[in-house]
Every structure is written in structure tokens, then in C-alpha cells.
């Protein structure tokens, strides 16, 4: 059975999306992407530093991947829209991760500005994946505005604290029709598996892989965990119970 994730007219087999931030060197990126199995990979846009030789990170992402530029650095909708247009002009497709942040302590997204940017960019034909704080009303508005998927955070960016927003994520997964992709905060493969068991359509992982001692090995572990969690979700998890329910027959004991 093919279990493909449909976003923006693409059919994606891997439900692990990979971020390229924080790698100690770009040369680790292709190995890690390959080990993860990821088909959607994020990059950022920054000003060229004319005084220092720089590499183009996009050239380290396998050409078979969908490149998803983010709008990091944007403090409002206008800046996010501008970054998205610049990214599209680079000729690497029309996917964009909207990221609007004006809080430097927790790096929590500005949901209001994120919604405004989503409205503009979806209308311009972008495949828009907004990163936001999980909130049902906002998610419904993002969906209505034309978001191709919604990407609620599990915990603050780079914190590795896992699914602290679990109850809100569950509500979004239950209510939102476009794919719900848990982005930010996932610190270990078991948390990625848990998100997938909950019914998340995919997860986006960066810090936990890029800053591991062995990024390709950690990427492989995440890929396996995401696949296992997805399979478990599709298999249908059983109910839990406060009391024990015997696994062996409760009749025919030898002392009867």
C-alpha cells in the first residue's frame, strides 16, 4: 500500500522533513539527507558576505529533494513575503516555510503576522507551510487562507524538549484537514515516533539531527522512528486502561 503525503501537488514518501541549520560543515548535509530519507529539506536566505567566501547550501541538498526555503529573520508579514519572493526567484521551486518571529528569547512565532503572510503568498501561488504556535482558530484561518499544510511547534526551536504542546497538537490533528506537520522542539527519535502515532502527517527535525555526534546515524534513527510511528498510527493503536487486562486465559488454571 502506498502511503504518500500529498502537499502542493507532490506525493512524498518520507514523512521526515529535515532542516539544514547548525551543521558543523555543509559537507555533512548530503550524507545526512540521504540517511534520513527526507525528501523535503529547508534552507534559509541571508545577505551575501562579500568579504568571506561562502558556499551555497542549496548545492549540498540532493537535487531530488524539494527545497523549502524558510523566511527566518522576518519580523512581520511584509518581510516574510519579501523573503519568499526572493527565494522563489532563485529558481528552486515555490515551496516556502513561513516563519515570522519577533521574540528573541523563546523564538515563538507571531501567529497574526504568519496568517497575513500566508494569505498573500498562497494567493501568489506559493506552496505555503506556516510555522506557528498551535492554536485551533489560527490553524483554521491558515487552512482557509490556502496553507498547503500547517506546522505547529512541539516546543521552542532548538530546545529538544519534545511535544510540550501535545494536547493542542491532538486537537489540530483531529480538526484540521490539511496535513499537520510538527515542527520545532522534537529532540529524540522516540518523540518523533510519538508525534506520528498521534496522527501527525509528518515532522520537521533539525537541531536534534544536526547537532548529534553522528548526524547521519541520528538521521537514520529519526527516519526509522517516523516510519514506525506512522505504521503504528495506520495500524490503529489500542485503548489504554487503568486496570490490568490479562493477556493469558483466566480459566483452566492447574490449581482449580
Amino acid at each position, binding site marked *: 500500500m502506498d502511503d504518500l503525503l500529498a502537499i502542493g501537488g507532490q506525493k512524498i514518501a518520507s514523512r521526515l522533513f529535515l532542516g539544514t541549520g547548525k551543521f558543523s560543515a555543509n559537507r555533512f548535509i548530503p550524507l545526512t539527507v540521504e540517511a534520513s530519507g527526507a525528501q523535503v529539506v529547508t534552507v534559509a536566505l*541571508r545577505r551575501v558576505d562579500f568579504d568571506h567566501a561562502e558556499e551555497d547550501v542549496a548545492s549540498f541538498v540532493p537535487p531530488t529533494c524539494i527545497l523549502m526555503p524558510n523566511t527566518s529573520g522576518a519580523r512581520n508579514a511584509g518581510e516574510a513575503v519579501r523573503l519568499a519572493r526572493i527565494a522563489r526567484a532563485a529558481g528552486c521551486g515555490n515551496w516556502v516555510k513561513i516563519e515570522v518571529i519577533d521574540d528573541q528569547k523563546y523564538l515563538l512565532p507571531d501567529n497574526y503576522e504568519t496568517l497575513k503572510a500566508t494569505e498573500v503568498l498562497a494567493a501568489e501561488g506559493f506552496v505555503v507551510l506556516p510555522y506557528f504556535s498551535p492554536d485551533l482558530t489560527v490553524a483554521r484561518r491558515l487552512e482557509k487562507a490556502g496553507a498547503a499544510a500547517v506546522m505547529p511547534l512541539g516546543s521552542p526551536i532548538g530546545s529538544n524538549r519534545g511535544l510540550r504542546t501535545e494536547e493542542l497538537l491532538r486537537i489540530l490533528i483531529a480538526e484540521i484537514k490539511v496535513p499537520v506537520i510538527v515542527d520545532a522542539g522534537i529532540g529524540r527519535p522516540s518523540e518523533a515516533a510519538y508525534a506520528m502515532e498521534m496522527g501527525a502527517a509528518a515532522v520537521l527535525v533539525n537541531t536534534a539531527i544536526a547537532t548529534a555526534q553522528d548526524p547521519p546515524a541520528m538521521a537514520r534513527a529519526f527516519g526509522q522512528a517516523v516510519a514506525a510511528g506512522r505504521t503504528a498510527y495506520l495500524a490503529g493503536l489500542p485503548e489504554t486502561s487503568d486496570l490490568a487486562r490479562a493477556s493469558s486465559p483466566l480459566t483452566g488454571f492447574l490449581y482449580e
Partner: protein
Amino acid sequence: MQVTVNGKTEEIPAGISVAEYLDRREVGRDSLVVELNGTVLTRPEWPARILNTGDRLEVVRFVQGG
């Protein structure tokens, strides 16, 4: 002639194009995106677009990011 490139004011010779400017700065063109006065310039526009006094040029590229 003064222009602003990536937020810094610079003195450049009059009459040079965006493409010539990038060559002078010895930056590999392959992966760049250029925005002039808030509007993205397509690659074919670079040789034809002559810089004017007060122009604001942004030269960006993809970097690592999550």
C-alpha cells in the same frame, strides 16, 4: 556615485550594471538572488540594469536553516 548594498553605503563607478557590480565584488553568481529597490531582478535583467545613485541593492543566497 553612491549606492547601498546589503545595508552598507558604497562608492561605485557610474554606469555599471548589476552584473558588472557582482563581477567587481568577485562573488560567484550561480546561487545569488538580487533585489533592487525592493523588486527582485531576474538573472537576464542583471547585465542590462544600470545602477543609479541611491539605488538599494540586496544580494542574497541560501544558507543553512531549519
